[in-house]
């Protein structure tokens, strides 16, 4: 069937006599219980119970019709205690025998080392509107499976929760470190039969928002983190693993010899070794909790041609060290979730590698993807744990990088309505694709957008090429004349693709319920002088538009002064996140910046 898209604008405006009812949530959790128990013998029990009422068809067709439970059958035993659905009329439908099916978890596909993991798919039968699902299960974990007792619990779910109880039970002689983030809730502490129980009760929890551009680590949401490790002990556990002996085999040495022959300098050798690991070794996206937070030996990772991000970070360090380049693996945690008293390994959001070449600046690289710049410029607000047992360094990156983009240009529009001229671009920090430029200097042609493309660039000169700052001079000549519409001519102002263009934010909803995370702060400046033929007039001038707020400013001015147009566009956003209270100001600034009429020149002959 042909898909129909019909867009019609109606001239009439209808007044709404009836205000539609607020839509209910798709479902409501009446209760969630999570009970974590550390037994005397080191084994662990996890008990989960949920009772959820379904309010929409979407809830049971797409969201809650099945429950997925991942476990490791070699060390863990799953027992389903209860799986029933109570229908609207009170009829109870127990899940039939064929409602319990074990599959391979998706993340373990193509990862042979993790193919023993299982995912129990529990299908809830007899679902309808206002039906209530109840599921109760326990997972018993043998002693020695996990290094310590820990979990990172997000309190919010995709539907609102009336009551959520999280209980943590440890032997009375065991220290438990815990903290509730973004919510003021303390535990009720009970002691009985040699156990200490910390019982947290959360009531009336709102559902998660589905807005775009929320903080990507969900570090604005309420969560309960606990561990019997402190941070230093957790760091020690990762650092002391046998995999960090960094041994290599002959295959790995041969691959390094090839790279050494092909590399012109140390920087190029480092990036080629990184590319070998990111592009030629598969990444297994297995959550660390299912790999027991362990890494296989780098030789095994190399031979199996795949590894988890943690394993690949160790492999990358191994190859660097074998090539005579000092490097250490890093575990990254968002700083506002980092507490030195709690060592919860689930909080690690990424594994990177710190490289310290003897004759160059320190580099932070990813073992899973090549990047165009040192990742240090992307780690504002993150804490890095160096995984070296002899020096357990912890660095919090508190630098606020401005990521400046500055473009100045002098252009001439000739009587044939063709543009020629010179543009100078200076880019700093995250906006500077330094590694790409040193790999291939012609990459700078791809940085220019708007009314200029790489085909228009006749020549370029790299004035400065450093990690912090690159400067490039371009000489351009547009091949085609400007588009002519009845002697009206249109020209998009040139821009740099690595500034706000790289945010890809074209439209912002006027309403906002959660804080807005900006991809990266930026300070972007454009200054152009455009010489015109005598009979040409600017149709769309903009005189001194200026909005200043606590977190930035926008200034736009496009004026004609005799036979020249002087363009000034500036946007500065100095924060990573915009609170809900300031969102309207941010939207106003960005709407002005993105407005097509301030990004385009309309000229009339």
């Amino acid at each position, binding site marked *: 069937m042909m*898909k129909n898209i019909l867009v019609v604008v109606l001239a009439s405006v209808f007044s709404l006599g009836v205000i539609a009812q607020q839509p209910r949530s798709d479902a409501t959790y009446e209760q969630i219980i999570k009970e974590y128990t550390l037994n005397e013998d080191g084994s662990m029990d996890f008990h989960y119970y949920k009772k959820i009422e379904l309010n929409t068809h979407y809830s049971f067709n797409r969201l809650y019709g099945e429950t997925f439970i991942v476990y490791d059958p070699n060390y863990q035993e799953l027992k389903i205690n209860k799986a029933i659905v109570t229908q609207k009329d009170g009829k109870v439908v127990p899940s039939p025998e064929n409602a319990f099916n074990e599959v391979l978890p998706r993340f373990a596909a193509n990862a042979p080392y993790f193919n023993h993991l299982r995912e129990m798919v529990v299908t809830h039968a007899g679902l309808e509107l206002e039906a209530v699902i109840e599921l109760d299960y326990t997972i018993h974990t043998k002693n020695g499976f996990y290094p310590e007792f820990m979990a990172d619990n997000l309190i919010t779910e995709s539907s609102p929760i009336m009551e959520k109880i999280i209980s943590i039970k440890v032997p009375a002689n065991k220290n438990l470190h815990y903290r509730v983030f973004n919510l003021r809730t303390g535990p009720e502490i009970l002691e009985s039969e040699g156990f200490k129980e910390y019982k947290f009760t959360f009531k009336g929890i709102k559902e998660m928002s589905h807005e775009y551009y929320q903080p990507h680590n969900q570090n604005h949401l309420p969560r309960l983190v606990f561990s019997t490790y402190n941070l230093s002990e957790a760091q020690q556990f990762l650092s002391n693993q046998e995999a960090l002996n960094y041994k290599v085999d002959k295959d790995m040495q041969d691959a390094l010899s090839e790279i050494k022959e092909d590399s012109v300098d140390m920087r190029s050798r480092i990036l080629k070794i990184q590319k070998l690991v990111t592009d030629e070794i598969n990444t297994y996206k297995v959550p660390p909790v299912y790999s027991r937070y362990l890494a296989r030996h780098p030789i095994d990772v190399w031979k199996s041609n795949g590894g988890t991000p943690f394993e690949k970070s160790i492999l990358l360090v191994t190859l660097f060290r074998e090539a005579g380049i000092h490097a250490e693996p890093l575990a990254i945690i968002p700083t506002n979730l980092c507490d030195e008293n709690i060592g919860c390994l689930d909080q690690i959001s990424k594994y990177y590698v710190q490289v310290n070449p003897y004759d160059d600046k320190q580099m932070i690289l990813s073992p899973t993807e090549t990047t165009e710049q040192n990742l240090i410029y992307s780690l504002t607000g993150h804490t890095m744990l160096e995984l070296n047992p002899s020096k357990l360094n912890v660095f919090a990156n508190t630098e606020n990088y401005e990521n400046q983009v500055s473009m100045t240009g002098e252009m001439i529009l000739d009587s044939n309505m063709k543009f020629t001229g010179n543009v100078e671009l200076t880019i700093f920090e995250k906006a500077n694709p330094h590694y790409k430029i040193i790999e291939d200097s012609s990459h700078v042609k791809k940085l220019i957008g708007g009314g200029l493309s790489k085909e228009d660039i006749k020549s370029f000169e790299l004035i400065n090429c450093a990690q912090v700052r690159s400067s490039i001079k371009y000489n351009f000549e547009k091949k085609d004349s400007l588009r002519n519409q009845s002697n009206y001519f249109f020209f998009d102002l040139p821009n740099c693709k690595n500034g706000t263009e790289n945010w890809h934010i074209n439209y912002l909803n006027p309403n906002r319920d959660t804080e807005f995370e900006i991809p990266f702060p930026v300070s972007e400046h454009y200054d152009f002088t455009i010489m015109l033929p005598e009979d040409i007039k600017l149709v769309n001038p903009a005189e001194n538009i200026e909005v200043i707020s606590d977190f930035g400013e926008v200034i736009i001015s496009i004026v004609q002064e005799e036979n020249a147009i002087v363009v000034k566009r500036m946007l500065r956003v100095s924060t990573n996140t915009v609170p809900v209270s300031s969102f309207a100001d941010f939207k106003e600034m960005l709407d002005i910046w993105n407005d097509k009429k301030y990004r385009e020149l309309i000229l009339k002959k």
Partner: protein
Amino acid sequence: MAPRSDQEYAIITKEEIIFTPLVVSNIFKRAMSHLYFKTDLEERKYNFRDRCTMHVQLYETIALPDSVSVEYIPAITDMSGTGASFKGYFTIEDNKLKVGANLKFKKRIYKPDDWGSFREAVASQNRMANEPVILRIESEN
């Protein structure tokens, strides 16, 4: 969608009004996968595919102020082929600008011979989006 004020909708000077009618500005582009095809390629050797067959209908009527005349409206031509068809119009009647387009993308898997009409239909829709309407404001004298 919140109503747009005149200032946002059009560039207005003492002499002209320049704007792209909302419905032909490639709004809801994400629902129209054919708009993501690069139409530079003149010929295709192999079959190509889109998300699904598609029938796109775009209509808008804009009431104009008094004393304006048309300086420029995009020149569009109806066409039909084995891959796609396009019918469009810009008309002014009773001080109202009417714009419309009716596009049919007839297949999901296209043959190389379908490329000509497919490409032309996409280019026609893009032309309506990229070339704004220009109205001249007649002086009172």
